[in-house]
């Protein structure tokens, strides 16, 4: 991206001044190098989002931003229904509530190392993943309805996990307002036996250890000790969520025409929040959000089973679960007033500061744990949300490293088999369902996650707490 089109505000904030039909300015959080590396398309997409009705304060992009669908991936925007604010498929994505959760195991690195292969192989066999994967759990139609309206709470009631898990899941694992009637029959049919499945692409299950602690007091509150092993799950709402996105792409395309909303990029199709189409879409999104929470909850149950087979003494305790493809109703301070807005985070993670009442009790006064996933060869980070991040970015941060190389180029550059050997020599054991899929996910196809996290930390959006290193990974 050309720097001359931007106004630098310090070293980590870049403003796209309001021009043309933009209702608010745009803002990118990143260091100069990351901005220079960003696609021009990101500039265009931030500006397009800034033109949507009812947008508040600014149209934002995180340091891992890249060209997305209407919104950039790494895009954040808040809309006020009272000012004609909209909901958009582009701001949520097709994998609704794709997200991450991290589980403490209570095990030390030295304990796990000798049995790492056994652990990863067990997880590989126990958690269904890859193209067309189906789980063992077959839900009756009333049970599916339960999942769509009650999310994790419902599957915990069915016996998948513990009550305590709910407290450590964003929204307690259930958003209200999900009406299954807003979800098409096709989406329901596609759900068949997919709860508790990982999927493919960049989704994973990773065994990691605490390599570095930056903020000891917060790390302790989050339950981290040096060399402790954790397991992180990354996945979303599977075919049900994809179908919700697909179904409403057309509904919202019609709604945009009906309400005369000027659309500068097709994928930005949207409907006023306060319209029958907008309410119906948001309701379907809530169902898919709940489905994704339930999916990660059932996978957690399977991970516990697998972990227990290899390490009967292990006790998997949930650190936190947070989505990064969502639209949420939240209260934010805007122009000195507390206001309820619809915050779209497309490839961005919520990061509430210490005073938020939504936080689990043990994290109140501390801040929300934020999980930033790296790649299978690099690091992941746990950050903590801050008050300044609430002020600057509607309490949002990045979600990962962000791609720097297309899948096509990655496949030309690496072979899955060789990549596995290379990572093995670095002490990282990988099991994947597809060799070409592995090549696409090569670590060097992504931006440097440390640089992305540094920009978040120095930009005041969240603070670094610990760095996690992978030792084992199951790829979908």
């Amino acid at each position, binding site marked *: 991206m050309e720097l001359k089109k931007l106004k630098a505000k310090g070293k980590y904030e870049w403003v796209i001044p309001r021009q043309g039909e933009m209702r608010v300015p745009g803002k990118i959080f990143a260091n100069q190098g990351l901005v220079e590396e960003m696609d021009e398309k990101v500039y265009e997409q931030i500006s397009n989002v800034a033109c949507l009705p009812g947008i508040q304060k600014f149209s934002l992009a995180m340091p891992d931003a890249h060209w997305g669908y209407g919104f950039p991936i790494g895009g954040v925007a808040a809309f006020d229904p009272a000012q004609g604010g909209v909901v958009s498929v582009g701001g949520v994505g097709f*994998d609704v509530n794709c997200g991450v959760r991290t589980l403490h195991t209570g095990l030390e690195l030295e304990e796990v190392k000798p049995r790492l292969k056994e652990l990863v192989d067990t997880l590989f066999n126990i958690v269904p993943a890859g*193209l067309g994967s189906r789980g063992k759990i077959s839900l009756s139609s009333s049970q599916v309805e339960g999942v769509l309206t009650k999310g994790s709470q419902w599957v915990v009631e069915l016996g998948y996990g513990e009550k305590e898990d709910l407290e450590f899941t964003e929204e307690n694992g259930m958003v209200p307002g999900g009406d299954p009637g807003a979800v098409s029959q096709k989406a329901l049919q596609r759900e068949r036996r997919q709860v508790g499945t990982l999927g493919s692409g960049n989704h994973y299950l990773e065994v990691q250890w605490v390599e570095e602690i930056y903020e000891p007091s917060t790390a302790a509150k989050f339950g981290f000790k040096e060399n402790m092993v954790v397991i992180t799950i990354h996945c979303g709402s599977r075919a049900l969520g994809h179908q919700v996105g697909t179904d409403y792409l057309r509904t919202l395309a019609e709604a945009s*025409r009906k309400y005369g909303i000027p659309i500068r990029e097709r994928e930005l199709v949207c409907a006023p929040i306060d319209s029958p189409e907008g309410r119906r879409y948001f309701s379907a999104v809530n169902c898919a959000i709940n489905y994704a929470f339930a999916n990660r909850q059932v996978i957690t149950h399977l991970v516990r089973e697998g972990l227990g087979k290899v390490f009967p003494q292990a006790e998997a305790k949930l650190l936190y679960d947070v989505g990064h493809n969502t639209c949420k109703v939240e209260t934010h301070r805007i122009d000195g007033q507390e206001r309820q807005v619809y915050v779209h985070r497309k490839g961005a993670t919520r990061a509430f500061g210490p005073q938020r009442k939504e936080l689990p009790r043990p994290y109140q006064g501390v801040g929300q744990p934020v999980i930033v996933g790296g790649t299978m060869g690099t690091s992941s980070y746990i950050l903590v949300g801050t008050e300044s991040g609430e002020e600057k970015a509607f309490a949002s941060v990045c979600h990962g490293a962000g791609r720097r190389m297309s899948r096509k180029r990655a496949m030309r550059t690496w072979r899955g088999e060789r990549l596995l050997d290379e990572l093995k020599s670095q002490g990282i054991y990988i099991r994947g369902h597809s060799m070409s899929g592995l090549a696409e996910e090569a670590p060097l196809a992504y931006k440097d996650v440390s640089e992305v996290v540094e920009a978040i930390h120095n930009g005041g959006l969240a603070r670094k707490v610990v760095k996690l290193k992978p030792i084992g990974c199951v790829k979908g």
Partner: protein
Amino acid sequence: MGRFEYFEHLADMGIIGRGASLAQAFEEAAKAMFNLMVDIDQVEPKERIPIHCQGGDREELFVEWLNALLTEADINGMVFSRFSVESLTGEELSGWVKGEGLDPERHHAKTEVKAATYSGLAVGEKGGEFYARCVVDL
């Protein structure tokens, strides 16, 4: 003769179908999409499934066609290798696909395609050849 190819997209993948008619361009694009999921040469056309869809214009219709195929594949646990667009007006499409039950090993399962999207979407004709393209979300 129709053919399909791919174009670069940072996070996902662009697909293009080309042919002597718009219908053929749509069919070729469908091949491109399924070839991301499996090796379509390994998929036998054992079972036929009818497809009907509608869209506000031919671009929307193209995305609807691809998404209808993903939905049918997923609901039936199948993958497809033969695609036929029988009738194509500005707003409506009818056709069929043939394939068989997914066998991850025999079909060399690759990646899931979440959805066909409006990104990079274009349908048209150039130099007597029709094309249909868009980015698919992986």
